[in-house]
């Protein structure tokens, strides 16, 4: 069975807040849901499938269905960190294709800034029962120094440079200047990235994504319902997911789960990397983008540095426009989970609703990719390819 063209993204919403001192977590989820449903021209009463992940409060899907008064016949709380919502799009399409629901709602929200969370720089433990914790937590693994080890190895093995990584941030900043909601709207140069303080060798402060409150939501629905609505038609063409882990100690930090999620999505969609006009790539750090683009087939392994350099990711300038909202590096990384906003900007591009200065011409095939967890230990990779009719 394939999901190709069996489900459509009918509504998307990115919460405009970047610091939500005056809102509760459940409230942010619900506001995001209302935004995406209004965008689609649907209401809460139409929702019969609900998807959320570890950022949802309480008992997750149960608590939020209760809060929003949803009447559900399908629920999916797949948790793969920041890539969860990209996986949810694929799962929603599967559920719709199988007749398990008609209108699937996916929500994300969080308030790490309001709560003063040391997101990237404090060692994170997922509890004493996690089988890995005793063998990792004593060594001070933070989000930054783990991704930094992947960057360090890539540089050692392939000669990737800090300047090449910096180009990824530069491209994101070129796009973010046009986004009034972006946390960081200032255009930066390669030199400014390289002169920003080192957080964990070789990653500088400006190699790291922003920390923001907020959220977003996506509505996926059946083709017949999508055609009855007033919005442009955005079919789901293909989806792939993968989990990469430490493989019992056979560590290889030079690739991600995208080596499996990408080909699966391309095969289902029946397209190749050369057909893709726009990419949303999870950008927790610059290195995340570079390795992912290689793994998805946009550059041979080890050659990602050349792909991302010299403005090649800048819309209207380079050959592979990426993250035209400014991405996690400049715009928004709500709840420390950037997968949902990746899908949102890809939908804007396909609808022709991106900012005119970054809108890709004739954008008919777009790819959104999420990476959740840690590049250095265990992560979930998710790729969706979407189109327009």
């Amino acid at each position, binding site marked *: 069975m394939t999901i190709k063209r069996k489900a459509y993204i009918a509504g998307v919403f990115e919460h405009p807040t970047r610091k939500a001192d005056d809102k509760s977590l459940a409230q942010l989820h619900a506001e995001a849901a209302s935004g995406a449903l209004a965008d689609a021209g649907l209401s809460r009463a139409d929702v019969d499938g609900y998807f959320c992940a570890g950022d949802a409060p309480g008992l997750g899907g149960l608590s939020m269905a209760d809060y929003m008064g949803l009447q559900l016949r399908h629920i999916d709380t797949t948790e793969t960190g920041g890539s969860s919502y990209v996986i949810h799009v694929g799962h929603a399409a599967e559920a719709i294709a199988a007749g398990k629901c008609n209108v699937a709602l996916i929500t994300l929200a969080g308030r790490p800034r309001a709560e003063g969370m040391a997101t990237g720089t404090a060692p994170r433990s997922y509890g004493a029962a996690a089988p890995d914790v005793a063998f990792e937590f*004593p060594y001070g693994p933070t989000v930054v*120094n783990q991704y930094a080890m992947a960057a360090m190895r890539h540089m050692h093995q392939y000669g990737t440079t800090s300047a090449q990584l910096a180009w990824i941030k530069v491209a994101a900043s070129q796009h973010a200047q046009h986004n009034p909601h972006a946390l960081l709207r200032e255009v930066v140069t390669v030199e400014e990235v390289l002169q920003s303080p080192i957080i*964990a060798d070789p990653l500088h402060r400006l190699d790291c994504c922003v920390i923001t409150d907020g959220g977003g939501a996506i509505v996926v629905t059946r083709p017949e319902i999508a055609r009855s609505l007033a919005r442009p038609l955005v079919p789901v063409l293909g989806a792939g997911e993968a989990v990469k882990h430490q*493989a*019992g100690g056979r560590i290889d930090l030079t690739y991600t789960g995208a080596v499996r999620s990408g080909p699966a999505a391309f095969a289902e969609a029946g397209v190749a990397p050369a057909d893709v006009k726009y990419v949303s790539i999870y950008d927790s750090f610059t290195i995340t983008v570079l390795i992912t683009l290689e793994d998805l087939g946009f550059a041979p392994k080890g050659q990602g540095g050349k792909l991302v350099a010299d403005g090649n990711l800048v819309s209207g300038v380079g050959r592979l426009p990426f993250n035209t909202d400014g991405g996690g590096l400049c715009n928004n990384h709500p709840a420390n989970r950037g997968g949902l906003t990746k899908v949102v900007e890809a939908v804007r591009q396909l609808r022709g609703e991106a900012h005119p200065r970054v809108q890709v011409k004739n954008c008919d095939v777009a790819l959104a990719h999420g990476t959740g967890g840690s590049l250095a230990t265990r992560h979930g990779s998710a790729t969706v390819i979407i189109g327009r009719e």
Partner: protein
Amino acid sequence: MAGTERTIPGPPVNPETQAFWDAAGRGTLLLKRCIACSERHHYPRASCPFCGSDRTEWTEASGRGTIYSYSVFRRAPVPYAIAYVTLAEGPTMMTNIVDCDLDAIRIGQVVRLTFKPTEGGPPVPMFSPA
């Protein structure tokens, strides 16, 4: 000689890993080896992550290894080096590189095992330049 003044949180010990941490207390690094497929793995599990067999045994590691990757965390109050070290026996493990000039650490460097005390737990295996 930076990197050792940091307070190291004690690892939580459970029945599955008790033997590993008892050995660590004696200055020995243990690896799990699968009796069915002969492969060694880390972190240690009761069942083999390669073939699924629950016939696993503890074996002693030589304590020799090379640095696969590392990063010095400059933002910390006391900068320290996190690393993956590939053991002579095969598996690669997360660790810290200690008792050395943090700026002189390199991928491929040969390192040897040492143990460092933790707060409220058994000592943990770390590595320093050989």
